[in-house]
C-alpha cells in the first residue's frame, strides 16, 4: 500500500535516519500499545493504561501513514514497470529477506501457540494465549503492519542512499 499524493507522485523523500527512527517507533509503539490495552482487559486494570495503549497504537498508525507515502515505500509497492533496474534488484532482495524474517516470526508464533496449548492441556504451565477477539485483532493488525513495512525496513537498514548533488 503506497499512498501517492499529487505533491509527491514518487513519494516523499525522507532521509535514511528519519525512516529508521520511524520504523523503530512503529515496531515499538504498536506492540507496546496493544499490550497496554490488552493487559487491563484481562486483569481488570485501569482505564489510564488502556488510554495510553490506544495513544501508542494511534501514534504507530500515524507513523505507518507517513511511511506509506515515502519514496522508500513506493519502491516496495510500485508495479515493476514503474521502477528502474536498481530499484527492482533492491526490492527483490529486500522482499526475499523480509519474507524469511516474516516466515520466521509466524513460525515462532505458531510454535508458541502449539506449546502453550499442549502445556495448558496437560495442566503443566499456563502461559498467555490469545483468547478474545481483541487479542486476535491486535495480532492480525501487527502482522499486517509488519508485512507492509518489512521490505522497506530491510532497504532502510541496508546501505545508505547517495547524497543528493
Amino acid at each position, binding site marked *: 500500500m503506497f499512498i501517492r499524493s499529487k505533491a509527491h507522485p514518487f513519494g516523499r523523500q525522507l532521509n535514511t535516519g528519519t525512516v529508521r527512527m520511524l520504523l523503530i517507533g512503529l515496531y515499538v509503539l504498536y506492540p507496546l500499545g496493544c499490550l497496554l490495552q490488552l493487559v487491563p482487559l484481562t486483569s481488570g486494570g485501569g482505564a489510564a493504561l488502556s488510554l495510553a495503549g490506544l495513544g501508542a497504537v494511534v501514534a504507530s498508525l500515524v507513523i505507518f501513514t507517513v511511511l506509506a507515502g515515502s519514496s522508500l515505500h513506493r519502491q516496495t509497492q510500485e508495479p515493476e514497470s514503474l521502477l528502474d533496474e*536498481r530499484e527492482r534488484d533492491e526490492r527483490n532482495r529486500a522482499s526475499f529477506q523480509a519474507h524469511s524474517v516474516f516466515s520466521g516470526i509466524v513460525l515462532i508464533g505458531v510454535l508458541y501457540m502449539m506449546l502453550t496449548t499442549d502445556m495448558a492441556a496437560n495442566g503443566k504451565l499456563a502461559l498467555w494465549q490469545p483468547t478474545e477477539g481483541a487479542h486476535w485483532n491486535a495480532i492480525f493488525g501487527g502482522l499486517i503492519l509488519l508485512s507492509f513495512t518489512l521490505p522497506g525496513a530491510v532497504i532502510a537498514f541496508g546501505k545508505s542512499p*547517495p547524497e*543528493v548533488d
Partner: protein
Amino acid sequence: MIHNRLSVFRAERALSRKDIAEAVGVNPQTIGYLERGDYAPSVELALKLAALFGVPVEQLFSLKPFAPLAHSLRDQES
C-alpha cells in the same frame, strides 16, 4: 566489481545526476549508487550511459580500476 568513471565524465560535462538519470530513464539515486560503486549496471544501462557521453563503453566501465587522471596525463607527456 565494476569500476566506472561516471563522476569524471559527469563533472566534465557539468551535468547533474538528475540530467543523466532523465536521459537514460532511471532514478537519480541510481546514478549516485553507480558513481559510488555500489551498483553494477546492466549491459543496457551501461551502453545507454556510454552513448550519452559519446564514448566506447570500456572507457566508462572497467573490470579493473582506472588509472588516476594525473597518471594518464603524466604518461602522455613523457
